[in-house]
Protein backbone atom coordinates (compact mmCIF):
# COMPACT_ATOMS: atom_id res chain seq x y z
CA UNK A 1 0.00 0.00 0.00
CA UNK A 2 1.55 3.26 -0.99
CA UNK A 3 0.74 5.90 1.55
CA UNK A 4 1.33 9.58 0.97
CA UNK A 5 -0.48 11.35 3.84
CA UNK A 6 0.81 10.69 7.34
CA UNK A 7 0.08 11.36 11.01
CA UNK A 8 1.25 14.66 12.49
CA UNK A 9 4.04 14.55 15.08
CA UNK A 10 1.80 16.00 17.76
CA UNK A 11 -0.80 13.27 17.16
CA UNK A 12 1.83 10.53 17.46
CA UNK A 13 3.09 12.16 20.65
CA UNK A 14 -0.45 12.34 22.08
CA UNK A 15 -0.89 8.66 21.21
CA UNK A 16 2.36 7.75 22.96
CA UNK A 17 1.37 9.78 26.01
CA UNK A 18 -1.90 7.86 26.21
CA UNK A 19 -4.07 10.95 25.87
CA UNK A 20 -6.19 10.01 22.85
CA UNK A 21 -9.75 8.72 23.00
CA UNK A 22 -10.33 5.17 21.82
CA UNK A 23 -11.89 6.31 18.50
CA UNK A 24 -8.79 8.43 17.83
CA UNK A 25 -6.56 5.51 18.84
CA UNK A 26 -8.42 3.31 16.37
CA UNK A 27 -7.72 5.74 13.53
CA UNK A 28 -4.07 6.04 14.50
CA UNK A 29 -3.66 2.25 14.77
CA UNK A 30 -5.33 1.73 11.35
CA UNK A 31 -2.84 4.03 9.69
CA UNK A 32 0.11 2.61 11.64
CA UNK A 33 -0.87 -0.85 10.38
CA UNK A 34 -0.33 0.17 6.77
CA UNK A 35 2.51 2.65 7.31
CA UNK A 36 5.95 1.60 8.51
CA UNK A 37 7.12 5.21 8.25
CA UNK A 38 4.67 6.30 10.96
CA UNK A 39 5.28 3.15 13.03
CA UNK A 40 8.95 4.14 13.26
CA UNK A 41 8.01 7.66 14.34
CA UNK A 42 5.51 6.29 16.87
CA UNK A 43 8.18 4.10 18.38
CA UNK A 44 10.46 7.11 18.84
CA UNK A 45 7.62 8.81 20.74
CA UNK A 46 7.49 5.77 23.09
CA UNK A 47 11.26 5.95 23.61
CA UNK A 48 10.94 9.62 24.53
CA UNK A 49 8.37 8.66 27.18
CA UNK A 50 10.76 6.02 28.50
CA UNK A 51 13.70 8.40 28.61
CA UNK A 52 11.75 11.15 30.40
CA UNK A 53 10.45 8.50 32.81
CA UNK A 54 13.98 8.17 34.18
CA UNK A 55 13.98 11.82 35.23
CA UNK A 56 11.03 11.20 37.51
CA UNK A 57 11.13 11.68 41.25
CA UNK A 58 10.16 8.36 42.80
CA UNK A 59 7.58 8.36 45.60
CA UNK A 60 7.42 5.86 48.45
CA UNK A 61 5.62 2.60 47.87
CA UNK A 62 4.24 0.61 50.78
CA UNK A 63 5.29 -2.88 49.72
CA UNK A 64 8.81 -4.20 49.31
CA UNK A 65 9.78 -6.30 46.32
CA UNK A 66 9.89 -9.45 48.41
CA UNK A 67 6.45 -8.74 49.95
CA UNK A 68 5.08 -8.35 46.46
CA UNK A 69 6.59 -11.61 45.25
CA UNK A 70 5.26 -13.35 48.35
CA UNK A 71 1.81 -12.13 47.38
CA UNK A 72 2.30 -12.97 43.72
CA UNK A 73 1.01 -16.48 44.18
CA UNK A 74 -2.28 -15.35 45.64
CA UNK A 75 -2.85 -12.31 43.41
CA UNK A 76 -4.57 -13.15 40.14
CA UNK A 77 -2.70 -12.11 37.03
CA UNK A 78 -4.30 -9.04 35.55
CA UNK A 79 -5.51 -9.71 32.08
CA UNK A 80 -6.69 -6.85 29.96
CA UNK A 81 -10.09 -7.53 28.43
CA UNK A 82 -8.29 -9.23 25.63
CA UNK A 83 -9.23 -8.54 22.10
CA UNK A 84 -10.39 -11.82 20.67
CA UNK A 85 -9.66 -12.49 17.02
CA UNK A 86 -12.36 -10.91 14.91
CA UNK A 87 -15.13 -13.48 14.57
CA UNK A 88 -15.79 -12.57 10.99
CA UNK A 89 -12.66 -10.88 9.75
CA UNK A 90 -13.39 -8.19 7.24
CA UNK A 91 -10.67 -8.47 4.66
CA UNK A 92 -9.02 -5.40 3.24
CA UNK A 93 -9.57 -3.50 6.50
CA UNK A 94 -6.89 -3.02 9.19
CA UNK A 95 -7.64 -5.15 12.26
CA UNK A 96 -8.26 -2.21 14.68
CA UNK A 97 -11.27 -1.29 12.50
CA UNK A 98 -12.21 -4.84 11.49
CA UNK A 99 -12.74 -5.69 15.17
CA UNK A 100 -15.57 -3.16 15.30
CA UNK A 101 -17.41 -4.60 12.30
CA UNK A 102 -19.60 -7.68 12.14
CA UNK A 103 -20.12 -7.61 8.39
CA UNK A 104 -18.12 -6.81 5.28
CA UNK A 105 -18.12 -3.10 4.43
CA UNK A 106 -20.81 -3.16 1.75
CA UNK A 107 -23.16 -5.22 3.93
CA UNK A 108 -23.10 -2.92 6.95
CA UNK A 109 -26.35 -1.36 8.07
CA UNK A 110 -25.63 1.96 6.34
CA UNK A 111 -28.00 4.86 7.04
CA UNK A 112 -28.64 7.23 4.17
CA UNK A 113 -28.18 10.80 5.38
CA UNK A 114 -28.08 12.82 2.15
CA UNK A 115 -28.03 12.07 -1.57
CA UNK A 116 -24.95 9.89 -2.19
CA UNK A 117 -23.94 9.93 1.49
CA UNK A 118 -24.44 7.02 3.89
CA UNK A 119 -23.04 6.61 7.35
CA UNK A 120 -22.42 3.80 9.80
CA UNK A 121 -22.12 5.08 13.33
CA UNK A 122 -19.43 3.47 15.52
CA UNK A 123 -19.91 5.66 18.56
CA UNK A 124 -22.17 4.89 21.48
CA UNK A 125 -21.68 8.36 22.91
CA UNK A 126 -23.50 11.62 22.48
CA UNK A 127 -22.50 13.71 19.50
CA UNK A 128 -21.07 16.44 21.70
CA UNK A 129 -18.17 14.12 22.62
CA UNK A 130 -17.19 13.97 18.97
CA UNK A 131 -18.02 11.68 16.09
CA UNK A 132 -16.78 8.19 15.31
CA UNK A 133 -18.23 6.78 12.12
CA UNK A 134 -17.74 5.36 8.66
CA UNK A 135 -18.89 7.48 5.74
CA UNK A 136 -19.82 5.94 2.40
CA UNK A 137 -19.62 8.53 -0.34
CA UNK A 138 -20.81 7.94 -3.89
CA UNK A 139 -18.65 9.03 -6.84
CA UNK A 140 -18.88 12.76 -7.43
CA UNK A 141 -20.21 13.57 -3.96
CA UNK A 142 -19.07 16.91 -2.61
CA UNK A 143 -19.23 17.35 1.16
CA UNK A 144 -20.12 20.71 2.68
CA UNK A 145 -17.12 22.89 3.43
CA UNK A 146 -16.36 22.64 7.11
CA UNK A 147 -13.76 23.07 9.79
CA UNK A 148 -13.44 21.66 13.30
CA UNK A 149 -13.03 22.98 16.80
CA UNK A 150 -10.25 20.69 17.75
CA UNK A 151 -8.97 17.73 15.77
CA UNK A 152 -10.31 15.55 13.00
CA UNK A 153 -8.74 12.33 11.80
CA UNK A 154 -9.90 10.71 8.57
CA UNK A 155 -8.60 7.32 7.46
CA UNK A 156 -9.40 6.32 3.89
CA UNK A 157 -10.57 2.70 3.90
CA UNK A 158 -11.48 2.43 0.19
CA UNK A 159 -11.52 4.67 -2.85
CA UNK A 160 -10.25 8.23 -2.74
CA UNK A 161 -11.20 11.87 -2.35
CA UNK A 162 -9.65 15.21 -2.99
CA UNK A 163 -9.81 18.46 -1.05
CA UNK A 164 -7.85 21.67 -0.53
CA UNK A 165 -5.09 19.73 1.22
CA UNK A 166 -4.53 17.09 -1.46
CA UNK A 167 -5.62 13.71 -2.79
CA UNK A 168 -6.29 10.98 -0.22
CA UNK A 169 -6.26 7.30 -1.18
CA UNK A 170 -6.78 4.06 0.75
CA UNK A 171 -4.33 3.93 3.69
CA UNK A 172 -3.82 7.69 3.82
CA UNK A 173 -4.73 9.63 6.92
CA UNK A 174 -5.86 13.25 6.98
CA UNK A 175 -4.71 14.71 10.29
CA UNK A 176 -6.24 18.16 10.30
CA UNK A 177 -5.94 20.98 12.76
CA UNK A 178 -9.10 22.76 13.80
CA UNK A 179 -8.46 25.83 11.70
CA UNK A 180 -8.29 24.05 8.34
CA UNK A 181 -11.54 24.35 6.37
CA UNK A 182 -11.93 21.73 3.69
CA UNK A 183 -14.45 20.48 1.15
CA UNK A 184 -13.84 16.85 0.18
CA UNK A 185 -14.88 15.62 -3.29
CA UNK A 186 -15.00 11.94 -4.30
CA UNK A 187 -12.83 12.03 -7.40
CA UNK A 188 -13.10 8.61 -9.08
CA UNK A 189 -15.99 6.42 -10.22
CA UNK A 190 -15.52 4.21 -7.17
CA UNK A 191 -17.30 5.03 -3.89
CA UNK A 192 -15.08 6.31 -1.10
CA UNK A 193 -15.34 4.80 2.37
CA UNK A 194 -13.69 6.80 5.12
CA UNK A 195 -13.38 6.33 8.86
CA UNK A 196 -13.72 9.56 10.79
CA UNK A 197 -13.16 10.62 14.37
CA UNK A 198 -13.51 14.15 15.72
CA UNK A 199 -12.95 15.53 19.19
CA UNK A 200 -15.80 17.96 18.93
CA UNK A 201 -18.56 18.74 16.44
CA UNK A 202 -17.48 20.36 13.20
CA UNK A 203 -18.44 23.89 12.25
CA UNK A 204 -19.93 24.24 8.81
CA UNK A 205 -18.93 27.34 7.00
CA UNK A 206 -21.73 27.56 4.41
CA UNK A 207 -25.47 27.97 4.90
CA UNK A 208 -26.31 24.56 3.44
CA UNK A 209 -23.85 22.98 5.81
CA UNK A 210 -25.41 24.66 8.82
CA UNK A 211 -28.73 23.10 7.91
CA UNK A 212 -27.14 19.72 7.18
CA UNK A 213 -25.06 19.50 10.34
CA UNK A 214 -27.72 17.95 12.59
CA UNK A 215 -28.18 15.19 10.05
CA UNK A 216 -24.61 14.42 9.09
CA UNK A 217 -23.36 14.99 12.58
CA UNK A 218 -19.65 15.07 11.78
Amino acid at each position, binding site marked *: MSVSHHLADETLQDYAAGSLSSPMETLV*ACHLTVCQHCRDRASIAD*HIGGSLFEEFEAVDVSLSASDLLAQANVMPAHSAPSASPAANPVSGVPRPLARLLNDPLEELDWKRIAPGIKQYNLSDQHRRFGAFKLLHLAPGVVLSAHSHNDRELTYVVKGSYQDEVGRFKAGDIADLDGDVAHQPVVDTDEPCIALIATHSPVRYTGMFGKIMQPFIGI
Partner: protein
Amino acid sequence: MNTSVPTQPKKRTDAAAELRKRMGDNLVAIGRDRDEVAFADVYSYYAGRVKSFLMGKGMVEEIAEELTQEIMLTVWRRAESYDPAKAAASTWLFTIARNRRIDYLRGNSRIEVELDDEMLDIETTENDSQAKFVDDAQDSIRLKNALEKLPQEQRQVMHLSYFRGQSHGAIAKWLDLPIGTVKSRIRLAMQAVRVSLQNEEEALSEPSND
Protein backbone atom coordinates in the same frame (compact mmCIF):
# COMPACT_ATOMS: atom_id res chain seq x y z
CA MET B 1 21.49 28.54 22.18
CA ASN B 2 19.09 28.81 25.07
CA THR B 3 21.33 29.34 28.06
CA SER B 4 18.62 28.35 30.55
CA VAL B 5 19.09 24.72 29.56
CA PRO B 6 21.52 23.17 32.01
CA THR B 7 24.51 21.48 30.43
CA GLN B 8 25.03 17.90 31.45
CA PRO B 9 28.43 16.77 32.65
CA LYS B 10 29.72 13.69 30.87
CA LYS B 11 29.78 11.75 34.13
CA ARG B 12 26.03 11.90 34.39
CA THR B 13 25.56 10.55 30.87
CA ASP B 14 27.86 7.63 31.68
CA ALA B 15 26.00 6.88 34.89
CA ALA B 16 22.69 6.95 33.02
CA ALA B 17 24.04 4.59 30.37
CA GLU B 18 25.36 2.25 33.05
CA LEU B 19 22.03 2.25 34.89
CA ARG B 20 20.16 1.61 31.66
CA LYS B 21 22.32 -1.39 30.86
CA ARG B 22 21.90 -2.79 34.37
CA MET B 23 18.11 -2.49 34.24
CA GLY B 24 17.99 -4.14 30.81
CA ASP B 25 20.19 -6.99 32.08
CA ASN B 26 17.91 -7.31 35.11
CA LEU B 27 14.81 -7.75 32.97
CA VAL B 28 16.57 -10.38 30.87
CA ALA B 29 17.64 -12.22 34.05
CA ILE B 30 14.08 -12.12 35.41
CA GLY B 31 12.69 -13.47 32.15
CA ARG B 32 15.29 -16.23 31.92
CA ASP B 33 15.85 -17.29 35.55
CA ARG B 34 13.07 -15.70 37.66
CA ASP B 35 15.97 -13.89 39.30
CA GLU B 36 14.60 -12.35 42.51
CA VAL B 37 17.68 -10.23 43.17
CA ALA B 38 17.34 -8.69 39.71
CA PHE B 39 13.66 -8.07 40.39
CA ALA B 40 14.45 -6.34 43.70
CA ASP B 41 16.79 -3.97 41.81
CA VAL B 42 14.18 -3.25 39.13
CA TYR B 43 11.53 -2.76 41.80
CA SER B 44 13.56 -0.34 43.85
CA TYR B 45 14.25 1.82 40.81
CA TYR B 46 10.88 1.69 39.05
CA ALA B 47 8.06 1.05 41.56
CA GLY B 48 8.24 4.57 43.03
CA ARG B 49 8.47 6.08 39.55
CA VAL B 50 5.49 4.13 38.29
CA LYS B 51 3.44 5.28 41.27
CA SER B 52 4.61 8.84 40.80
CA PHE B 53 3.64 8.65 37.11
CA LEU B 54 0.13 7.40 37.95
CA MET B 55 -0.39 10.07 40.63
CA GLY B 56 0.95 12.76 38.31
CA LYS B 57 -1.71 11.67 35.84
CA GLY B 58 -4.32 12.38 38.49
CA MET B 59 -4.85 9.07 40.24
CA VAL B 60 -5.49 9.03 43.99
CA GLU B 61 -2.69 7.46 45.99
CA GLU B 62 -4.57 4.35 47.05
CA ILE B 63 -5.39 3.33 43.48
CA ALA B 64 -1.96 4.35 42.20
CA GLU B 65 -0.42 2.07 44.84
CA GLU B 66 -2.62 -0.83 43.84
CA LEU B 67 -1.97 -0.41 40.11
CA THR B 68 1.76 -0.04 40.77
CA GLN B 69 1.76 -3.45 42.43
CA GLU B 70 -0.09 -4.95 39.48
CA ILE B 71 2.28 -3.31 37.01
CA MET B 72 5.36 -4.56 38.88
CA LEU B 73 3.86 -8.04 38.98
CA THR B 74 3.32 -7.82 35.23
CA VAL B 75 7.02 -7.01 34.93
CA TRP B 76 7.83 -10.12 36.97
CA ARG B 77 5.52 -12.34 34.95
CA ARG B 78 6.16 -11.04 31.46
CA ALA B 79 9.84 -10.20 31.53
CA GLU B 80 10.57 -12.91 28.97
CA SER B 81 8.78 -10.79 26.37
CA TYR B 82 11.25 -7.94 26.95
CA ASP B 83 13.67 -7.57 24.04
CA PRO B 84 16.72 -5.48 24.95
CA ALA B 85 17.46 -4.91 21.25
CA LYS B 86 14.17 -3.10 20.79
CA ALA B 87 13.81 -0.87 23.80
CA ALA B 88 15.44 0.36 26.96
CA ALA B 89 13.98 -1.06 30.19
CA SER B 90 12.47 2.36 30.95
CA THR B 91 10.60 2.44 27.63
CA TRP B 92 9.20 -1.03 28.30
CA LEU B 93 8.13 -0.06 31.83
CA PHE B 94 6.65 3.23 30.61
CA THR B 95 4.50 1.52 27.97
CA ILE B 96 3.24 -1.10 30.46
CA ALA B 97 2.31 1.60 32.99
CA ARG B 98 0.70 3.81 30.34
CA ASN B 99 -1.37 0.93 28.93
CA ARG B 100 -2.47 -0.33 32.34
CA ARG B 101 -3.65 3.16 33.28
CA ILE B 102 -5.71 3.47 30.07
CA ASP B 103 -7.16 0.02 30.64
CA TYR B 104 -8.11 0.91 34.22
CA LEU B 105 -9.74 4.24 33.31
CA ARG B 106 -11.59 3.12 30.20
CA GLY B 107 -12.24 -0.53 30.79
CA ASN B 108 -10.81 -1.35 27.38
CA SER B 109 -7.27 -1.73 26.22
CA ARG B 110 -5.23 0.80 24.30
CA ILE B 111 -5.82 0.21 20.62
CA GLU B 112 -2.62 -0.79 18.90
CA VAL B 113 -1.29 -2.27 15.69
CA GLU B 114 -1.56 -6.06 15.62
CA LEU B 115 1.64 -7.47 14.29
CA ASP B 116 -0.03 -10.47 12.63
CA ASP B 117 -2.46 -8.24 10.69
CA GLU B 118 -2.54 -9.26 7.02
CA MET B 119 -2.67 -5.55 6.16
CA LEU B 120 0.62 -4.86 7.97
CA ASP B 121 2.96 -2.99 5.72
CA ILE B 122 6.59 -3.87 6.05
CA GLU B 123 8.81 -1.61 4.12
CA THR B 124 11.24 -3.57 2.04
CA THR B 125 12.94 -0.68 0.34
CA GLU B 126 15.85 0.99 2.01
CA ASN B 127 15.19 4.38 0.50
CA ASP B 128 13.27 5.56 3.54
CA SER B 129 15.93 7.79 5.00
CA GLN B 130 14.06 8.80 8.14
CA ALA B 131 15.48 8.15 11.57
CA LYS B 132 14.81 4.85 13.25
CA PHE B 133 15.55 3.79 16.76
CA VAL B 134 17.89 0.86 16.18
CA ASP B 135 20.79 0.32 18.49
CA ASP B 136 19.46 0.53 22.00
CA ALA B 137 22.53 1.69 23.94
CA GLN B 138 23.74 4.22 21.39
CA ASP B 139 20.34 5.54 20.41
CA SER B 140 19.23 5.83 24.04
CA ILE B 141 22.15 8.15 24.72
CA ARG B 142 21.51 10.17 21.57
CA LEU B 143 17.86 10.48 22.45
CA LYS B 144 18.57 11.47 26.04
CA ASN B 145 21.10 14.08 24.95
CA ALA B 146 18.62 15.48 22.43
CA LEU B 147 15.94 15.78 25.10
CA GLU B 148 18.35 17.51 27.46
CA LYS B 149 19.28 19.99 24.77
CA LEU B 150 15.70 21.00 24.06
CA PRO B 151 14.71 24.55 24.95
CA GLN B 152 13.01 24.65 28.35
CA GLU B 153 9.64 25.59 26.84
CA GLN B 154 9.65 22.42 24.71
CA ARG B 155 10.72 20.19 27.61
CA GLN B 156 7.92 21.65 29.68
CA VAL B 157 5.13 20.76 27.24
CA MET B 158 6.57 17.28 26.70
CA HIS B 159 6.63 16.65 30.46
CA LEU B 160 3.09 17.94 30.90
CA SER B 161 1.84 15.76 28.08
CA TYR B 162 3.56 12.53 29.07
CA PHE B 163 3.33 12.86 32.82
CA ARG B 164 0.55 15.18 33.85
CA GLY B 165 -2.33 13.56 32.04
CA GLN B 166 -3.08 16.63 30.01
CA SER B 167 -4.40 16.97 26.49
CA HIS B 168 -2.69 19.56 24.30
CA GLY B 169 -5.76 21.77 24.75
CA ALA B 170 -5.54 21.53 28.54
CA ILE B 171 -1.81 22.30 28.45
CA ALA B 172 -2.55 25.40 26.37
CA LYS B 173 -5.08 26.59 28.94
CA TRP B 174 -2.79 25.78 31.84
CA LEU B 175 0.11 27.73 30.33
CA ASP B 176 -2.17 30.41 28.91
CA LEU B 177 -0.91 29.85 25.37
CA PRO B 178 -2.68 29.34 22.04
CA ILE B 179 -3.07 25.62 21.34
CA GLY B 180 -1.14 26.07 18.09
CA THR B 181 1.90 27.16 20.13
CA VAL B 182 1.72 24.03 22.29
CA LYS B 183 1.42 21.80 19.23
CA SER B 184 4.28 23.48 17.46
CA ARG B 185 6.54 23.10 20.53
CA ILE B 186 5.74 19.40 20.57
CA ARG B 187 6.42 19.14 16.84
CA LEU B 188 9.77 20.89 17.22
CA ALA B 189 10.76 18.61 20.09
CA MET B 190 9.86 15.48 18.11
CA GLN B 191 11.82 16.74 15.10
CA ALA B 192 14.87 17.56 17.20
CA VAL B 193 14.91 14.03 18.60
CA ARG B 194 14.57 12.49 15.13
CA VAL B 195 17.38 14.64 13.79
CA SER B 196 19.60 13.52 16.66
CA LEU B 197 18.99 9.88 15.78
CA GLN B 198 19.91 10.59 12.17
CA ASN B 199 22.96 12.63 12.79
CA GLU B 200 25.40 10.58 14.85
CA GLU B 201 28.25 13.06 14.85
CA GLU B 202 26.22 15.92 16.15
CA ALA B 203 24.15 13.97 18.63
CA LEU B 204 26.99 12.07 20.24
CA SER B 205 28.90 15.22 21.01
CA GLU B 206 28.27 16.54 24.47
CA PRO B 207 25.78 19.36 24.89
CA SER B 208 27.78 22.47 24.15
CA ASN B 209 29.35 24.22 27.09
CA ASP B 210 28.56 27.85 26.73
